[in-house]
């Protein structure tokens, strides 16, 4: 490599802001090429995306609804990644988390509403965390690779949930594989109801109270990872396990805690979907959000401050994307799944593609200015 630069001379905003933006632009250019191959005009598609996600109040509310899900799954991936654990199991953990929400809402519905909500949140965290605990334990104690076990656990969760939804907790008065609805007063207040409260009339959108929960979860993760002893220990294990052991930090304990918290955060997705939108468990409700969380976390460089804009970007792509599929017959919603893949490729696997060039460009520029 001809242009290796001294890492300490690179300003933080070049490596944490400019390089990710360059990668994102590359990803969007490749995505534009796909849209062109599919026979549509990429510039028109961008216009539709911006209109669909920002152009009217309900569209923007939809964008924030998707953002909520991506914040949860993005944070989930990021927490585990700080301990160098690759939790691909967000999908399954969110699915199982739905059980916790459902049981709390069904069996404790006699309690006051806010307490049931707290129990439902606890249920989501406990069930999601428990589903992550097994792979975590197997990684920590038996050395089975967490990537493979979490993939397997996604499939096992899917089989288990379909079994439960078909044979055990199905609403027997309905045809589809879903449960009965939880009591109406337990439904999370939506943006529409909130608007009515302050006198603004908006049409329905799935945006609900969970959005604030996602913000709270972001603050919680920031505090936990960067402001507590435990967060420090966990990052130490992730950076250099051997050094952490010499410092008296137990990698086993930290692997398990990181994974359980990660699973709990993924489980919170079920709060948004079960209490906020469907009001029951429907089959396959995690719908790929768990996997998109990987992209969100990688783009957001595993920091809550980065995860929020990344989640918003994916919210824009999802909501704006549905506007595009509506107006452009040649674009299906799968095109935006492909866009996610391209973003993961450029901001994850190929993140170092142009890093040396970009960094040396800025370092040289700054040096010239200093000398001048």
């Amino acid at each position, binding site marked *: 490599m001809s242009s290796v630069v001294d890492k300490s001379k690179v300003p933080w905003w070049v490596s944490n802001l400019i390089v990710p933006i360059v990668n994102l632009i590359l990803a969007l250019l490749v995505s534009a090429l796909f849209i062109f191959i599919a026979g549509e005009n990429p510039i028109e598609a961008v216009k539709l995306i911006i209109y669909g996600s920002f152009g009217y109040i309900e569209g923007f509310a939809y964008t924030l609804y998707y953002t909520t899900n991506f914040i949860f799954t993005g944070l989930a991936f990021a927490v585990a990644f700080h301990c160098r654990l690759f939790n691909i199991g967000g999908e399954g953990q969110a699915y199982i988390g739905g059980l916790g929400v459902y049981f709390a809402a069904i069996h404790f519905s006699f309690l006051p509403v806010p307490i049931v909500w707290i129990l439902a949140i606890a249920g989501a965290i406990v069930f999601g965390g428990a589903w992550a605990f097994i792979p975590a334990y197997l990684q920590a104690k038996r050395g089975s690779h967490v*990537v493979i076990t979490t993939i397997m656990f996604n*499939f096992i969760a899917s089989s288990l949930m379909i079994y439960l939804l078909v044979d055990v907790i199905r609403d027997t008065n309905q045809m589809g594989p879903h449960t009965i609805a939880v009591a109406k007063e337990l439904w999370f207040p939506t943006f529409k109801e909130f608007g009515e409260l302050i006198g603004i009339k908006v049409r329905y959108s799935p945006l609900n109270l969970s959005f604030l929960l996602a913000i709270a979860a972001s603050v919680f993760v920031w505090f936990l990872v960067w402001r507590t002893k435990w967060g420090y220990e966990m990052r130490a294990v992730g950076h250099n396990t051997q050094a952490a052991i010499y410092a008296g930090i137990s990698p086993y304990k930290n692997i398990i805690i990181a994974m359980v918290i990660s699973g709990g955060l993924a489980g919170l997705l079920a709060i948004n979907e079960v209490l906020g939108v469907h009001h029951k468990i429907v089959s396959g409700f995690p719908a790929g959000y768990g996997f998109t969380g990987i992209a969100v976390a990688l783009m957001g460089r595993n920091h809550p401050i980065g995860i929020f804009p990344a989640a918003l970007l994916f919210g824009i792509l999802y909501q704006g994307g549905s506007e595009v599929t509506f107006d452009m017959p040649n*674009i299906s919603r799968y095109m935006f799944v492909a866009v996610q893949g391209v973003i*993961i*490729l450029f901001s994850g*696997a190929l993140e170092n593609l142009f890093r040396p060039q970009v960094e040396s460009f800025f370092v040289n520029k700054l040096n010239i200015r200093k000398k001048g």
Partner: protein
Amino acid sequence: MEIFADLASLLNSTLRISTPLIFAAMAGLFAERSGVIDFSLEGKMLTAAFVAAVGSYYFGSPWLGLILAIIACVSLSMLHGFASVTHKGDQVVSCVAINILMIGLTTALAAAWFGQAGLTPTLTDEQRFLEITFPFADAIRSIPIIGFIYSDILSGHYIFVYLAYISVPIVFWIVFKTSFGLRLRAVGENPSAVDSAGINVFAMRYKALMINGVLIAFAGAHLSTAVNANFFREMSAGRGYLALAALIFGKWHPKTALIACLLFGFTDALQIRLQGVELPAIGKIPVQLIQAIPYVLTVVLLAGFVGKAIGPRAIGQPYIKER
């Protein structure tokens, strides 16, 4: 005789279902033995299915479709190599990217070119691979046992089924009996030692990925131009991950991986056979339970409760050449 017919259909579906798993497991074996993780089998299998179906539809020849599928899969493998071998990016991230990208792109393009359902047009008999009936199969059928095995089990499969089983001893021979195979395994175990012996680690890993791309293309073509006569969205349905599980279950060995593929294929065939069937004394077995068996078995094996699966030592680590 009904038991024979049942057994025949169960064995036949096991052979058929195992075929893409075997190709994918052998593909994964080359990549992982060279030290490169390959979770992207799923995405590549889907790509091959799409390209083979579209290629065969436009050019009227399933063989041309297969060749195009091979080119597509090798390109994706090279992309994986470019990201994770050359640029030392995270191998798992690269695989996740390829999977999500191809799940999206195959269906998006199918929808753009052939309508919103994301299906490719149904292939005619000339555009797809057909079952091969062995010579004299009808004549020998009446002979007890031999006739049954020859005519009802061995005969009447797609070409890929035979190729899959032929590929296993060939893979075994290449990996364990040739100098290429020795180097391949060494690169996956201890790349710096191989490097000091004057062998190019990067070139070895790229070669392994190239073979990986060729083999996985067969799995995809089997799905869309043999068993089915078109591509539909997410038609690989987790087979890439299942094959990876079989590879791990088979401890990164061709022979044991083959057995794992057959076992997983059998559980799937059994699951299809048992749907809605009341068994004496047991009652109805939930099909989801049987579907989960391969995944549960793999987790149990990985946990070291039954045997121990230890992968190539240098797997997942990009090789950094010392100056």
